[in-house]
C-alpha cells in the first residue's frame, strides 16, 4: 500500500475488511467509513452494466454500484485471501473508472477479537447489522452479549438481501466468513470452515461467489443442513425453503 495522507480523507469506502491497522488510522483521523459491500444506494443496477457482467456476484455488483454513486475520497479494498479474487478484479475496474485512489490492501490479521454477536440470542437481522457495522471500528464494542445455546445455524457471508434472515429464531448462531468478520480475521480459513454438526444449519451461498464451493461441501458433510444458493434477492422459493427447513428440523420448536 502506498503512503496516503489519511487526514485528507473525510469519506472513504471499504470493500471486505481492510487490515485493522488501516481501520484504526481511519478511526483516529475521524474519517467516515462506508461499507461498500452493504446496500447503501437504491440506484439502478443497469447503470453499472458496462462495468460488470450481469451474471456476477451480487455483493461485488453492489460494491461497484455504491462506489460509482457515493461521493468518496478513497476506497480501501481487500484483495487478499480475506476477500476473493473477484475483489481483485473489481479493484482494477474501480481504479480505471473512478477519479479517486483505490487502495489495495491485504488483510492477514490473526489476532482474535472474539465473536460474541455470532453466538448471542438476538434477532438475526439485528446481529448481522451489528456485525457489518462493526467492520468500521478497529475496536470491538465494550459491552458484549453472552452466548446462548444454538437452535439453528447460519453459515456464510452476510447475504446481500437481509430479508432472508427473517425466518430464523433468535437463538441462531452465525458461522463462516461472517464469524471471521466479527473476529476481525477475514482470512482465518479454519474459523470460516467451522460449523456445529449438532445444530440444524443453513449453508448460505451468494451466487457466483467462490465460497459456494465451501458452502456446498460443508452442507454435504453436515448431518442436518440446507444448502441455499441465492443471487441478488431472496425470492419466495428461497424463503420458503429456509422456513420449511427450520420448522421441519425442529429449530423453531
Amino acid at each position, binding site marked *: 500500500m502506498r503512503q496516503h495522507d489519511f487526514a485528507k480523507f473525510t469519506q472513504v469506502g471499504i470493500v471486505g475488511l481492510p487490515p485493522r491497522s488501516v481501520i484504526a488510522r481511519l478511526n483516529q483521523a475521524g474519517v467516515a467509513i462506508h461499507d461498500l459491500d452493504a446496500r447503501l444506494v437504491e440506484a439502478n443496477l443497469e447503470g453499472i452494466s458496462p462495468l460488470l457482467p450481469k451474471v456476477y456476484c451480487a455483493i461485488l455488483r453492489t460494491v461497484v454500484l455504491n462506489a460509482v454513486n457515493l461521493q468518496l475520497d478513497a476506497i480501501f479494498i481487500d484483495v487478499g485471501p480475506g476477500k476473493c479474487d473477484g475483489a481483485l478484479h473489481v479493484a482494477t475496474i474501480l481504479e480505471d473508472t473512478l477519479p479517486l485512489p483505490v487502495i489495495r490492501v491485504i488483510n492477514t490479521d490473526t489476532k482474535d477479537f472474539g465473536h460474541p454477536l455470532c453466538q448471542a440470542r438476538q434477532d438475526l437481522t439485528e446481529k448481522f447489522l451489528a456485525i457489518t457495522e462493526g467492520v468500521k471500528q478497529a475496536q470491538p464494542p465494550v459491552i458484549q452479549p453472552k452466548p446462548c445455546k444454538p437452535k439453528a445455524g447460519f453459515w456464510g457471508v452476510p447475504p446481500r438481501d437481509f430479508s432472508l434472515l427473517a425466518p430464523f429464531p433468535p437463538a441462531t448462531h452465525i458461522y463462516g466468513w461472517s464469524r471471521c468478520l466479527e473476529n476481525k480475521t477475514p482470512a482465518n480459513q479454519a474459523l470460516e470452515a467451522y460449523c456445529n454438526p449438532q445444530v440444524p444449519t443453513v449453508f448460505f451461498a451468494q451466487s457466483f461467489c467462490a465460497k459456494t464451493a465451501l458452502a456446498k461441501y460443508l452442507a454435504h458433510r453436515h448431518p442436518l443442513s*440446507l444448502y441455499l444458493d441465492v443471487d441478488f434477492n431472496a425470492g419466495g*422459493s428461497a424463503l*420458503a*425453503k429456509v*422456513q420449511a427447513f427450520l420448522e*421441519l*428440523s425442529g429449530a423453531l420448536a
Partner: protein
Amino acid sequence: MIVGDFGTSYCKFLNLAEDGGQPTILASKELPGNLHVDLATGHNGRRFADRYVNELIALARGGEAMIAEPDYVLLDCGSRDLKFVAVAGGKLKDMGWNTECGASMGFTIELLGRYYDLDFKRLDAPETTFPVTCGVLGMSHIFDAVIAGMPVSQAVASLVKGIAINAHRFCGSPERLYLSGGLVDNPVFVASLPCEVITLGRFLLLAGLARQAGREAAPCPR
C-alpha cells in the same frame, strides 16, 4: 375446518369437519373471489385463507401422514413447479423447490395435450427423449421434431419423458420415488420416471394441511 391447496391450475379443498369427506377440485381460473378457507397452501393460498402453510412444509407433513417408512423421497409435480423432500431415519435429509428454471412443466404438458388433442392415457412412454430443463423452452424440441417428420404424439411424449427424467434428477435420482401432484394422473410421465414409482394422488398437500392443523391444535407440551 376447511383446508385448501391453491395451485396454479387447480385448487383442491377438504372439509376436515366432515368425517370421511372427500376432496373437491376446482380450476383456479374459476375460483370465486370471495372464497375463504381456514388453512391454505399453494401459490394463491395467502389471498384466500386465515392462515398459510408454505408448500414444502405441507408436502413434508403430507409425507408424514401418508408414508409409513423412515426413509423415502417424495416428489410433488404440479402445474408450475417441482418440489421434493428426502427423509432418512424419519428425519428431514434434503429438500428442494424449483420454481424458476425448470418450472411450468405440468402446465406445459396440459397445454400441449389440449392443443394437439392428445389423450395421455392412450400413449406409451416413448423410447426417445428430449433433453429439457424447462417446459416452455422444451416446446421448441416438439416443433423441430414434428417438422422433421416425427408424429406429434411421439414428440409430445418425448418431451414428457424428458421432463420426467429432469424431475427425477432434481430430487437426487432415487431408486424409489413417492410421487404426488397433478402429474400422477399422466401415465406417460409416471412410466417415464427411471425408477420405481409409488403414486400418492394429487391431494397429498391437503393431507399435509390436515396434519399441520392437528399439530397446531395440539396443546403445547409441558
